[in-house]
């Protein structure tokens, strides 16, 4: 089972390689941490965008966190959209930030759905070892 092309990069594979008998569900656990943490960041970003006067420094800091954790699990589309957002912060382009946030929220929802399906499928095909090794 190959992760969806374009949504996840090599980092995701690296995490799967780390899985072993001592932590057979490592990737799913890390993804769960990300999916629990990221909505909070998205919500903080949304709140901060709504504030006046604009606090681009804080916005940048929040997106930086989201970009970091996204890239740690290999969420390449989210990572790229965060970079776009950061560029808008740099330009103090509020409208750009708003558009980017909407994109990030859509990306996040799609990613969450795909990851959850992926892990569900892995459970269905049988023992974790088979599912992972068949990719090697």
């Amino acid at each position, binding site marked *: 089972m190959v992760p969806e092309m374009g949504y996840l990069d090599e980092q995701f594979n*690296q995490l799967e390689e*780390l899985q*072993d008998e*001592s932590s057979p569900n490592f990737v799913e656990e*890390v993804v769960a941490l990300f999916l629990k943490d990221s909505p909070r960041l998205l919500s903080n970003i949304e709140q901060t965008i709504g504030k006046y006067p604009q606090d681009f420094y804080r916005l940048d800091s929040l997106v930086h966190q989201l970009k970091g*954790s996204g890239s*740690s699990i290999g969420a390449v589309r989210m990572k790229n959209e965060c970079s776009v957002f950061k560029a808008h912060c740099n330009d103090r382009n509020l409208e750009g930030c708003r558009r980017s946030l909407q994109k990030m929220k859509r990306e996040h929802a799609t990613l969450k759905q795909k990851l959850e399906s992926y892990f569900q499928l892995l459970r269905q095909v049988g023992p974790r070892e088979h599912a992972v090794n068949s990719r090697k």
Partner: protein
Amino acid sequence: QTHQHINPSDEFFAVPYFCSCCSGEFDLLMAAASPTQAPAMTLPAAMAAKVAPSPKPAPAGDRKVVPVMTDADEVVVQVQVQAELHVLAVDDSVVDRAVIAKILRSSKYRVTTVDSATRALELLGLGLITDVNMIITDYWMPGMTGYELLKRVKESSELREIPVVIMSSENVPNRITRCLEEGAEDFLLKPVRPSDVSRLCNRIR
């Protein structure tokens, strides 16, 4: 007196031991013990006379064979288990903490994770974390940055010998230079991969 060279299996770990009768190494099979136990094994005296221990410098994680003479004219071989290397990982991201901890544990390191530099200094200062062989820290954290943590560690007489590695998602040459000049052991770009860490840890060992 004969002896056997036996291959280790999962149940046993082999202790390299130098044998003067065949001038080579043979492996004493010891029942796999927990890392904190020090199993002892008794060799018959006749064999002991021919065996000359030649312990090589044991890297952390290996077992060192130490022969101990007893009154019963036997040699009791005690195995001292070297402690695993202890790494303190500092990162405000819960995802990144999980990833770096897993990467390190897969390389057989003992890992303590904290979510801030101030917390790290607190625990180190209070002696609540001890025997730290390496600190690996994110650069950009709210409150105290990893760079500031690096400086504090290098300024401290108790802590300055501990190698500090900085991680960052941003490739900023000035930042890298500054960290290295301040005494950082290395600078890793995030996302951190197992190969980055093993390359690094080979130097720390």
